[in-house]
């Protein structure tokens, strides 16, 4: 690879928007009332990416540990609030506290290991590595915890009788929730595992494709992709495991009674 990159001009990018017009035409023609959503999505994508592009340029050209940390914490904050917003009033205050603690804890542990042990970034706060990898790990951990919460909430409702029966038979809350917690963990990690199964055959991952397009040798790109994928798996598994470890307890009170029963 010679590292040559075709720089896209604004006009070239503008040609890409023809697809939006094409989809708008189909929506109008078939009277599917989604035009305004599509227009908003297109505008938001454009402005958000332009803004982040300039912000990243500024951060990468002026690297500073505090700036890198600030970006990481903003990402984590958005991830936590995205989870809260998704479930609206379904989440109790205690389960929100668990999410606010375990999502950052799991993601940051996996991130630190990946950056400092696997890649060995120099200097340690190098935003060129720190920020995109944080985005990938935090984003996937957020999805994992969301799936875990969804399964936990559903199962504690539809398997309530089984949990109550187990408690009556002398089970601890941990043992009474064992099956539910396992199912939630499985639901959380399966999308990542399925991704790994299809990677390289069914699809080429976005990060690797991006690197190849920007002139990086495919052999280097795959090394990063494998590493990032393992980091994502670690982040998802650790965040979800921590969440479930503390999360199931929020369904019980101090007397080991199921809260929805008392």
């Amino acid at each position, binding site marked *: 690879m010679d590292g040559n990159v075709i720089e896209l001009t604004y006009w070239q990018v503008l040609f890409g928007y023809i697809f939006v017009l094409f989809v708008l035409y189909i929506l109008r023609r078939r009277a599917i009332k989604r035009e305004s959503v599509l227009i908003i999505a297109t505008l938001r994508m454009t402005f958000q990416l332009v803004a982040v592009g300039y912000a990243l340029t500024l951060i990468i050209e002026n690297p500073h540990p505090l700036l890198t940390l600030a970006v990481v914490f903003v990402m984590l904050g958005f991830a936590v609030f995205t989870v809260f917003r998704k479930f609206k009033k379904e989440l109790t205050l205690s389960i929100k506290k668990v999410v606010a603690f375990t999502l950052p804890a799991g993601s940051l542990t996996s991130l630190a290991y990946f950056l400092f042990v696997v890649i060995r970034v120099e200097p340690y706060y190098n935003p060129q590595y720190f920020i995109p990898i944080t985005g990938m790990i935090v984003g996937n951990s957020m999805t994992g915890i969301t799936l875990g919460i969804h399964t936990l909430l559903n199962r504690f409702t539809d398997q309530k009788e089984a949990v109550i029966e187990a408690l009556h038979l002398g089970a601890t809350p941990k043992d*009474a929730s064992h099956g539910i917690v396992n199912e939630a963990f499985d639901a959380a990690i399966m999308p990542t595992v399925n991704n790994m199964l299809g990677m390289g055959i069914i699809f080429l991952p976005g990060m690797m494709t991006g690197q190849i397009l920007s002139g990086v040798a495919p052999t280097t790109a795959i090394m990063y992709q494998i590493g990032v994928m393992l980091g994502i798996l670690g982040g998802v598994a650790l965040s979800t495991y921590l969440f479930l470890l503390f999360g199931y307890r929020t369904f019980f009170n101090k007397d080991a009674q199921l809260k929805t029963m*008392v």
Partner: protein
Amino acid sequence: MFEIKDVEYKDVLRVKNIDVASGEIVCIVGESGGGKSTLLRLLNKSLSPTKGTIHYNGKSLAEIDSVAHRREVVYLNQKPHMFPGSLRDNLLIGLRFQQREDADDKTLYDLMKRVRLNKSLDMDVKHLSGGERQRLALARVLLLDAAVYLLDEPSSSLDDVSEDLMIETIVEFTKKENKTLVMVTHSKDQAHKHGDKVYEIQNGRQKEVS
């Protein structure tokens, strides 16, 4: 063993005074929906009183570890839940929840014979009728060898003849094994026939002691 004095649970139940001594058979009678099941759940600490204190062996239930208490004072729901799997799985699950050793098949078959359930241990529970499930659930709690049994209409899904036989079996087991039994029943005749004490609960209020 149990002392309940001026105990309330929300608007559902108000009990003035109930005493259960060790080795006694105490029957609770009253209309359905009157709060009898709530009383058993309070004794088993599946629920906690909103007012008043229940004492167990001289100690306030609030100070006793809930899980340890439920292992000593076992509650059988009127409509017990069956876990997916075989009859054997369902019989052993209580022991497993309590981290105790599995019982052998001979013990399980003897127990099933005791509750008049003549089925294979390998059979899937989904093939059992409502009455058979109730018998299996009874066998499951008897296997736990608890000190106190709280049984909520243990024969409600059975016909009259089977119901009488089932209650005879429970009473016989309680006396032979020197257990304490608190049983909710809709039949006043059964309650007065077997109960050392009978309490009546009407519309969530304790009526009288006989």
